[in-house]
């Protein structure tokens, strides 16, 4: 019974990683850059929800919608102010360093506005806990909500990219920016849209993360952000199903490592597995192995 409980917890943790990893993977796939500020957008989203409920008295649903809108705007703003001028810079490191800078900026702004004290985030998930097998197995409402949200997001996102014009434009830009532009696709607009979607997902991830683990500080997004980046690399960066597989595998390995090997070594095990995967398959589990002519 505890095996099932570990598995469910692993999938739940992994689902949060997967939703965050989507943001990394989409942006990388299309803009070929690593948006390290992504984890901090999560934290901002959680603070928006908390402030909206506590100070403005909004209902949880309205607060979550507000956070999604806020993060979307924030994501587009960050892209246009900090990244767009650098996307064509000669060194790809420039935009990477900028991303790290934006990450610190967001942390420090949050620190300035909300202070460094830990705040307890009251769960906005109305789903009741599920008690199975005569009380032997209890699944928290947040866990159920996280897993369901993850599945819905994956399905909607996949449909969006396959069926909609904007999604097709994204695919085209990720294949070949120059050719896409020649075919009349608004490349900058497509990149901005990618950031908008990624940031909206970050808001959702922030709400789910803080509902399950109700402690909020300006650094809340940093560690999950890094783990999700690992998940994205793990699954094959640039690939949407890869983010899902990478995220869930990472969560399950982390929890199982803790449960069956050593609770101290959880992170070492996770990163150890990552190294092995990258040695065997350098592009990640679902990464495309495109040979480029040099």
């Amino acid at each position, binding site marked *: 019974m505890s095996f099932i*409980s570990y598995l469910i917890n692993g999938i739940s*943790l992994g689902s949060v990683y997967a939703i965050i990893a989507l943001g990394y993977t989409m942006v990388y796939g299309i803009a070929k850059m690593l948006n390290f500020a992504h984890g901090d957008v999560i934290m901002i989203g959680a603070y928006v929800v908390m402030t909206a409920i506590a100070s403005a008295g909004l209902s949880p649903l309205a607060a979550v919608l507000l956070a999604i809108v806020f993060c979307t705007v924030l994501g587009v703003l960050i892209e246009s102010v900090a990244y767009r001028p650098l996307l064509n810079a000669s060194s790809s490191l420039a935009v*990477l360093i900028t991303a*790290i800078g934006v990450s610190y900026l967001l942390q*420090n702004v949050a620190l300035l506005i909300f202070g460094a004290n830990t705040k307890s985030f009251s769960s906005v998930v109305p789903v009741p806990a599920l008690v199975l097998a005569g009380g032997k197995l209890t699944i*928290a409402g947040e866990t159920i909500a996280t897993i369901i949200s993850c599945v819905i997001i994956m399905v909607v996102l996949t449909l969006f990219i396959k069926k909609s014009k904007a999604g097709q434009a994204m695919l085209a830009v990720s294949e070949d920016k120059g050719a896409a532009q020649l075919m009349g696709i608004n490349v900058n607009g497509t990149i901005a849209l990618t950031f908008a979607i990624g940031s909206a997902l970050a808001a959702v991830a922030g709400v789910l993360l803080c509902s399950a*683990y109700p402690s909020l500080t300006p650094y809340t997004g940093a*560690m999950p952000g890094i783990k999700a980046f690992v998940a994205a690399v793990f699954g094959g960066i640039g690939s949407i199903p890869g983010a899902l597989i990478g995220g869930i595998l990472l969560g399950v390995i982390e929890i199982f490592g803790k449960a069956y090997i050593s*609770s101290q070594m959880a992170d070492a095990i996770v990163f150890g597995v990552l190294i092995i995967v990258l040695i065997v398959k350098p592009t990640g589990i679902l990464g495309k192995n495109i040979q*480029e002519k040099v």
Partner: protein
Amino acid sequence: MMKMRKALSAMLVAAMTMSLMAGCGSGSSDTGSSSGTSSAKEESSDEAVFKIGGIGPVTGGAAVYGEAVKNGSELAVKEINEAGGINGVQIEMDYQDDEHDAEKAVNAYNSLKDWGMHALLGTVTSAPCVAVGEVSKDDNIFMLTPSGTAVECVQYDNAFRVCFSDPMQGLESAKYIGEKGLAKKVAAIYDSSDVYSTGIYEAFVKEAENQDFEVVAAEAFTAEAKTDFSVQLQKAKDAGAELVFLPFYYTEASLVLKQAAGMDYAPIFFGCDGMDGILAVEGFDVDLANNLMFMSPFTPTSEDEAIQKFVKDYEEAYGSTPNQFAADAYDGIYAIKAAMEEKDITPDMSPSDICDAMKEAMVNITIDGVTAKGLTWEASGEPSKEPMVVKIEDGDYAVVE
């Protein structure tokens, strides 16, 4: 292929950079901490005053402690100054923020030293305290930590403490659980990346062998993975633990309580002094803390006259009930006063001479404070006093006999 390799190496470099930064990021925040918080600075130094420095986290994850120590020590300083000071000399206090970060604590210590500090009340948390101990030993400046519990906090002879050490807390907790027969099967969860938590845990497990209970699960977590406790709790639950020992700080403990409630697991939770402050976490559902027990040397609900006066004055001044950190700091200032009076110390003596005199004085004084009656010190720096256990009932503290 070349391009891909480039991208991959850039990614790995980035990952490494980020993990390096995350390492320091968790504790640092780059806000103007050096400005610190100062108090009673307005009486500037025309006439000689005793300069007492204070260091503790006023912001950051352990801010509840630093804030309490700041308030408690300010209250004591104010009372002493109104009553005529130490041997007729007023006290000036400068309290600096260290954000529970060892490096910032040493910086704060250096700026206090430049200010001309005669004695230090601090630091509040263990890891910074050990770091400051290393430098204050070389300067031979007297330090009295109100709440630094790690053994190493007082490893040099210039350092003393008001609270119990980590091993003492672990030992006393195990004794208490065993002697009161609280449980037969006990699980322990601890932070293996933190000296405070590990110190208590090790002493607890050692003493548990002598007690009539069994440690059925011992699970660790680290600073990088301190949000998900489902595995640790599940293991405790599977092992049939009736009591879970949580020797770590309230921030993580609030998550443990929430996750235990989420999985319908309700053992007795037992913590140490780091648990104090859990009721003050913004937005925390206090119902989760019902029946939570922890070892604390101070209870604001005690009927003792001195404690009642302290609680009343504190509430009037700061609008909140003092916790044990405030009480430790309050007693700490009175201990410094008693030791200074014992040796007739004057402000024109050098900090090093003061330190030498204070070392001798500390083992001779006895304080009737708010954390203990007849509180005395040994030359090792350890206090000698009785432990006490507090239980939270309906969102308030209650003493357990």
